[in-house]
């Protein structure tokens, strides 16, 4: 009985780490998410620096004689029916599709989260009122609204961005509302109330972080939904007016050519799919990273 067991081995010099540091550690361990992030970054950069990396302006019909040519060393993705380099069109198409997708997603966060949080937290009249607004936006399917608004305002790029934004938030809003409704009865929310935290504080610091995973999924889903809306509108002939290249428009045109000139349908669809896949994997990684309770490394 010589050793004194009560002495704790002195703790090594301790560095206080912020939760973000841990999140980053978790995120950087996720190869798929990192790859997705890199692809997304590349896509965004491509959209921004489109003029620098494409051989021709997107509208120039420089290759009319080669119209519909298949992919070749010269035209990586071939030439479209109007004699335009298809690779160029795809790169420029990223601009519109990404803007539409991300605007919608952004709006879903900017409108959806606060409204959903308000409705879920306060309930009662606030909830009733917000639910009626949500109802208005979800009762009228975005596509029909787009057709109506399009007929009214004569369509155009901004109408579509607007519609994607106006209708994209509903899902996130409902999700946040449901999640917050479920969480507001939890003890740790009560604990924060007991500390005198204001509702906004609780929503911001506790409820939203705890709802992060449906929020991210909703956010990530808003992107393909908006892009899809654009494509659907193009199908109905009321999308972004040509010659502005958009993936949706190209897919829609590509369908006509799908039987033979497969490249006209393949590349825009692939571009859309890759973008969304990257966003999804990135979102998944983000979600996992932001959730410290997740078991496993």
């Amino acid at each position, binding site marked *: 009985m010589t050793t004194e067991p009560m002495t704790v081995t002195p703790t090594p010099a301790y560095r206080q780490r*912020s939760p973000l540091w841990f999140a980053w550690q978790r995120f950087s361990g996720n190869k798929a998410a990192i790859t997705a992030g890199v692809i997304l970054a590349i896509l965004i950069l491509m959209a921004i620096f489109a003029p620098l990396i494409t051989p021709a302006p997107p509208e120039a019909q420089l290759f009319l004689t080669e119209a519909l040519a298949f992919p070749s060393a010269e035209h990586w993705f071939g030439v479209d029916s109007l004699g335009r380099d298809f690779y160029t069109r795809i790169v420029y198409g990223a601009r519109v599709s990404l803007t539409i997708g991300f605007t919608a997603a952004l709006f879903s966060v900017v409108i959806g989260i606060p409204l959903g949080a308000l409705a879920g937290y306060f309930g009662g009249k606030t909830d009733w009122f917000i639910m009626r607004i949500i109802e208005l936006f979800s009762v009228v399917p975005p596509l029909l609204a787009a057709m109506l608004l399009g007929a009214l305002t004569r369509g155009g790029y901004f109408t579509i961005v607007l519609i994607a934004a106006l209708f994209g938030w509903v899902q996130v809003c409902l999700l946040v509302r449901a999640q917050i409704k479920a969480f507001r009865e939890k003890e*740790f929310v009560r604990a924060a109330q007991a*500390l005198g935290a*204001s509702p906004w504080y609780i929503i911001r610091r*506790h409820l939203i972080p705890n709802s992060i995973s449906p929020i991210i999924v909703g956010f990530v889903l808003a992107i393909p939904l908006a892009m899809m809306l654009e494509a659907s509108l193009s199908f109905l002939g009321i999308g972004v007016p040509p010659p502005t290249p958009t993936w949706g428009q190209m897919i829609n045109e590509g369908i006509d050519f799908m039987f033979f000139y497969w490249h006209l349908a393949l590349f825009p669809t692939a571009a859309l799919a890759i973008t969304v896949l990257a966003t999804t994997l990135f979102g998944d990684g983000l979600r996992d990273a932001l959730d410290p*309770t997740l*078991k496993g490394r």
Partner: protein
Amino acid sequence: MPLVEIENLRVSFSQYGGQVDAVRGVSFVVNEGESLGIVGESGSGKSVSCSALMRLLPATARVSATTIKLDGVDVLKANKEDLVRLRGRSAAMIFQDPMTAFDPVFTIGHQICETIQAHRTLSKRDALAEAEHLLLRVEIKNARDVLNYYPHQLSGGMLQRAMIAMALSCRPKVLIADEPTTALDVTIQAQILQLIKKVQAEFGMALIMITHDLGVIAETVDRVLVMYNGEVMEQGSVAQIFDAPQHAYTKTLLASLKASFDPSGDATEGAAPALELRGLAKTYRVSRRAGLRTSQSDFHAVRPLDIVLPRNRIVGLVGESGSGKTTTGMMAMRLTEPSSGQILVDGADISTMGPAELKAFRRRMQIVFQDSYSALDPMMTLSQIIAEPLHIHGIGTTREQTEKALDWLERVGLPRNFGSRYSHELSGGQRQRVAIARALILGPTVLVADEPTSALDVTVKAQIIGLLKELQAEMGLSMLFISHDLSTVKSLTDSVVVMYRGRIVEEAPTEAIFANPQHPYTRALLDAIPVDNPRDRRERSFLSAEQLAAATPRFTTIQTGATPADTPQLVTIAPHHRVEALVTA
């Protein structure tokens, strides 16, 4: 062949920023029918060892052992089917945190039934009957209703008992009970312990009892294992450990049992009490299902009651599990809206205040929740959690807040490097201390502490209570101390309120109540305090509700000055001593 065989068990958790060695080379053996007690400091690896035995640790845990066998099966090598067979049948576990252990979306009845049906071929009806029977055996009186309750509708103690019922329903070969009675009042605790012993005798069940309550150890087990900092310090029979502790830690443990505290300083006379509850009551609407029809009825969780918490005093609130203590505490904090009554803080009525006005009061009044696990935001690190009150009230810069939070982490006996851990990475006692630190960091003047020490071993408990006392002296803290731990209540509080089924049945200064309990329930409670000496095991008698009603004290009008009535009422029988009694002419 021993039922449980563990040799050189090591468990470490990998984390970003380091590795936590929770268990380092633990070995023990449990034979059939044997009961082993594990005591030890909070965070010493008791729960983790047992979870390892059932392979229930999260994926971050790395487990290694020379042998770790349960019922002859090597747990580490077992496949899925083996595990399903082992769990529940060979070993069942009563978890330390009953309040988060139930699936919130299924009724208690469903969850017990499904356990029964998983191991025995019984019809749904029979399983329900069995479940009801089990609930009755763990002293849940309205068992039939409770079967249809959802977990959130039960009190902490009731959940714990449901958990015990569920574990027993498996009829395991070895029952691992991780702090099974922390949320129970002593009368029920004693009954539960007896029940466990009875079942043990009936089925030849072995028992591993993890507890920090040496009284429980003394009463239930044959052999004791003392753990400290992930290692086994010593092992031996109960008598051996109690009479001739070998290890320094064991000695401190036993010594701290005898600790007592100085009485509180003088109450500030004349000034308004720190907290006063007037006619506070809470009624829940519960639905009862009969076939397809559901009927609504009122459940009086708390009947109108008055409690006065004078400045700089500690009032103990004790009572049967499910008697409404938590509800009272939550109402006092305006966290549960009372059905009626007033709450006065420093003379100001806060029961009708809006959130803005209330905020000022919130700073002065704090609560420690009974269920510390769910009271901690799972998405926040400990330093964030503890600093949160400062953050809310905008005290200091972020840096200072963190610094202060880390200081408080140390004050409640946790190392500073816990600051960046998350609540699910803690042991039960560690979580509880975090909750206490958060409640104290603002320096409140009123504190409602709901079982703040239930998961703490005696040494840490002593430390925490020392801390509370210190604060009381320092800044005039007044505290409503809800607890089942009568020895702590006795040594800590100035006066005691006893609750029974939503009512106050007795209220008196601490010495008076321990020396001269008037109400039969109070008496039963004091009788049931477990001994802390293994040789003093004694049989106790329990009183049913009817017996209690029959034994209600009777006083005359002359004795009390109250008007006679057919129903019991609170009467004052001595200065500051009130008791529920029937008043006769």
